[in-house]
């Protein structure tokens, strides 16, 4: 498992422990990006909140004065990847790390950027797969509303959306 705390290049930051005022600003600057990064990998609010809290609880006491913005950001996201990997392992007994968790040096995409992955995946899917994912995930339709819109049954929507997700994850690894 990835253990960012043991990675020297992230730890090598001269100076003392960050004064409270400084880490509060580090927190304010990064809490939203870290939360969004987590959310896109857990898909729900309570888990995203837990992951975000764990990231700052772990990382803040280890940040030192003198760290550059890039170092702090790198350390926070490396910690986030580690926390997320543990989360998936605990919740779903998944040992294999997804690509961006396994690769610590890949920078997360800018938090406000539109997620290109979504466009790429949706455009590559057959029509009914794309439609069910758009209605349910992007537009927030309920099962019933989706069934109505697609002229099918709730049961079929469930089956269809799972197939669509399986297919989407094969087309491009999320």
């Amino acid at each position: 498992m990835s253990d960012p705390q043991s990675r020297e290049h992230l730890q090598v930051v001269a100076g003392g422990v960050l004064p409270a005022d400084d880490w509060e600003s580090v927190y304010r600057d990064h809490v939203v990006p870290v939360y969004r990064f987590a959310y896109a990998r857990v898909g729900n609010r309570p888990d995203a909140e837990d992951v975000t809290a764990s990231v700052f609880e772990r990382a803040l006491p280890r940040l030192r004065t003198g760290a550059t913005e890039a170092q702090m950001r790198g350390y926070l996201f490396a910690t986030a990847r580690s926390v997320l990997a543990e989360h998936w392992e605990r919740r779903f007994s998944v040992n294999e790390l997804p690509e961006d968790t396994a690769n610590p040096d890949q920078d997360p995409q800018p938090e406000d950027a539109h997620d290109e992955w979504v466009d790429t995946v949706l455009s590559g899917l057959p029509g009914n797969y794309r439609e069910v994912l758009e209605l349910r995930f992007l537009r927030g339709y309920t099962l019933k509303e989706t069934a109505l819109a697609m002229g099918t049954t709730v049961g079929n929507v469930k089956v269809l959306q799972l197939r669509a997700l399986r297919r989407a994850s094969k087309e491009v690894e999320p």
Partner: protein
Amino acid sequence: MSEKDLQRAIEAMLRDERPPHGSLTRDEAAALRAAARLRAAHPGADNPTPEFVDALMRRLREPRSSSTRRGFLRGAGIAAAAAVIGVGADHAIEAMTDKTAPKPNAGGSLVPWSASWKPVTTLTELASKPVVRFSSGAVTGFVIRNRDTITAMSAVCTHQGCILDAAEDSNRLVCPCHSQTFALDGSPNPGDYYLQPLPRIRSRVNGDAVEVFV
């Protein structure tokens, strides 16, 4: 995970709730990750609530020393930090930079810098009662006998800091606040919260006495 369980997990995500525990194959995990990523693309879905942002800020801001105590506790989480009082900040900082320190995600150990061995129970008591709770100074913990092995660990829930109880049959530790339970090795049982294991406390047997280093 069965097809139905996987569908349930997806529906939970779409309601913005935690998906239930389960064991996923590689393909199933990939499908669920795709669901998470799509879910995040729903407009506004991935914005943290201001309440959460403020509450976490307040938790992290707790007296300056508590964040150094967190380091001292080596990742045991804020709640467990409540178990320790009076740790010199300098020492705690040293502990944080200690290269030999356990990995912070391993649940950590409670090893105070100025501590001594204190007797908290006896082998005789443990023979009839495998889980004994003790309070010694600032630390509340359990001494746990599992056949011939004795371990000690913090009794402070790593969720919100409530003091755990031993279950009546002494086979697990139960939090009175949110019903979270921990196994006797300190690992959190699957539940609603994402928790750290209970930090260990050093223990030894001295004659009949069981002593902890607190």
